[in-house]
């Protein structure tokens, strides 16, 4: 089963492990989100914004030189061409419309790479709503251009100073903020993580990615589905969107790429599906990197967007059940793939997306295999990191 059950579980993963102070907000969302998203007026506004503001549909580009190199047919789903430069805005557009309908006047968000923070700051500017973004101190430093963008868009960026000072800690701070401001605030969570109904709601907003893919593939290769989809997984929202309409089509192989950091066994990794076991993080039961005592382990990845010790419950279920295959990619392999795409296709990918590209090297692809790599974002925000490693 790849859809949630009535309690918000995918198999044994998911649920809503939240303090009582958040119960009403979560419950309110749970009751209304499916109806609202289905409402014609909601869909009309959502689709119009995706088209005219975000610039959708994003192209499905046949990467000829990359295909030659990997001896298969590789298409890139160009989420990097979205307004603000990543898939994250598909979700923030949807959630800001939800927030307006629940009557909230203040928005909070967490961000790792800063792409979700920028996408949230953007929709808040669009709607004239106050926006506060929590971001780990380490990430504020390594994703400086995005911090500047958020501020320019009128958002307040608050540093998260606890723990590893990265995405996990920014999420903790955002949840604490929501506990203290339940009345006026909506939390626009940035991935398919958190308590039910967030994982499912975010997946639905991101599902536009695979919906478009179906039409584009039909047009380009005469059938709606590829043989394989490759996407990176931090929390897993771009992967959830890219997999969504193919979840029940077993002829499509799903490859979820995780950040191995300096190596799966190095102690500096974020390869959750290998290093993690069942646990609870940010209100959801999922695979989690933790000590024997259940203390959450601080992850590591060169890519701020993948530097997370958990994984969305949908992906925990897909990997655990064998529906998706998880592949770990190291910092170094991701950098190489980023340089490779730049030279072969003239596209500088986000470091997160570079992890997905690096998986091409690890898979035994068949000659005519149709592969879609979800190019979740563009690399502008990572230039400083790329430059540091240039010529290595």
């Amino acid at each position: 089963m790849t859809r949630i059950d009535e309690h918000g579980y995918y198999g044994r993963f998911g649920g809503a492990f939240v303090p009582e102070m958040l119960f009403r907000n979560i419950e309110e969302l749970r009751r209304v989100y499916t109806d609202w998203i289905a409402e014609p007026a909601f869909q009309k506004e959502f689709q119009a914004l995706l088209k005219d503001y975000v610039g959708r549909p994003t192209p499905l580009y046949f990467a000829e030189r990359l295909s030659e190199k990997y001896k298969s047919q590789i298409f890139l789903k160009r989420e990097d061409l979205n307004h603000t430069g990543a898939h994250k805005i598909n979700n923030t557009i949807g959630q800001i419309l939800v927030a307006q309908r629940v009557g909230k006047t203040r928005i909070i968000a967490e961000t790792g790479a800063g792409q979700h923070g920028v996408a949230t700051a953007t929709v808040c500017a669009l709607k004239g709503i106050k926006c506060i973004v929590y971001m780990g101190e380490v990430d504020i430093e390594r994703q400086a251009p995005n911090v500047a963008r958020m501020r320019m868009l009128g958002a307040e960026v608050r540093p998260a100073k606890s723990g590893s000072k990265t995405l996990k800690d920014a999420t903790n701070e955002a949840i604490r903020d929501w506990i203290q401001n339940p009345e006026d605030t909506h939390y626009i969570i940035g991935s398919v993580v958190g308590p039910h109904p967030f994982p499912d709601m975010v997946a639905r907003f991101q599902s536009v990615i695979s919906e478009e893919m179906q039409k584009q593939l039909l047009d380009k290769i005469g059938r709606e589905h590829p043989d394989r989809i490759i996407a990176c997984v931090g929390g897993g929202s771009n992967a959830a969107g890219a997999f969504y309409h193919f979840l029940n089509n077993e002829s499509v192989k799903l490859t979820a790429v995780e950040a191995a950091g300096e190596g799966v066994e190095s102690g500096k990794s974020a390869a959750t599906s290998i290093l993690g076991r069942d646990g609870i993080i940010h209100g959801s039961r999922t695979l989690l990197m933790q000590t024997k005592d259940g203390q959450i382990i601080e992850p590591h990845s060169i890519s701020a967007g993948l530097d997370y010790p958990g994984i969305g419950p949908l992906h925990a279920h897909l990997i655990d059940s064998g529906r998706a295959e998880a592949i770990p990619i190291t910092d170094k392999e991701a950098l190489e793939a980023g340089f490779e795409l730049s030279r072969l296709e003239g596209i500088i990918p986000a470091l997160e997306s570079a992890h997905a590209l690096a998986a091409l090297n690890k898979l035994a692809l068949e000659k005519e295999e149709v592969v879609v790599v979800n190019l979740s974002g563009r690399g502008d925000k990572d230039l400083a990191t790329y430059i540091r490693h240039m010529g290595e």
Partner: protein
Amino acid sequence: MNRIKDLFKVKDKAILNVFVTAGYPNLSDMPEIVKTLAASGVDMVEIGMPYSDPLADGETIQHSSKVALENGMHLDLLFEQLRALRPTVDIPIILMGYFNQLMQYGVEAFIQAASEAGVDGMILPDLPLIEYERTYKPLFEAANISVSFLICPSTPADRIRKIDTLSQGFIYMVADAATTGQTRDLSEAQRTYFKHIQRLDLQNPRLIGFGISTRDHFVQAAQFARGAIIGSAFLRAIDPKKPENESNSLDERIRGFVGSILEPTVSVG
């Protein structure tokens, strides 16, 4: 026998429950802290099991958890300390923590260890009611460990009734929309909320927690509930890094703090 039920049965003055993080300020301080608290008139203690990501807690408890983990606190050591402590104090002991800690220890193994250590109750702010009801309730009940659930201003009335049916010992009434550690005076809205809860005539007694830091708060809380829980303010009072604490021993700091809350005795209602 359940020490929590007995306490609420016999005590006619305001009940003071003090929270301390196990392993803070030093790895082995908790048993002495509890003994001193009991000797100074505190009615029950809530012992925090330090956690890396305490979502419902504010800065003070987060900090104490971090220090405790750095000191090397872990659950087996906590149970060992509790087993040695239990014969020396009579007051109820409650453990507070996050559900992942129980999941990793094994819920059944945890309950058994807690029971052997003489633990009387549990507070697990992120354990959903539905999970408790579906899976864990019989396990806790068989071990005579009462689980107290939280209610807060946004909890709807029908859910409060349900929490009342499922809670044992007492209900933890969160004073405000807040993580732990905020210190504000009781507002008009809070008084209205407390009065509303009083009128529901619940079967469980209630303690008020979150943001109670002074005698004045404690006196006000006792007008609307059987007493209160003090956590962050106590941790701040015993923090060895605070300049004002430097010249006092841990024992003196504890007695000084409890005295400032409890003397003279506070009545209920």
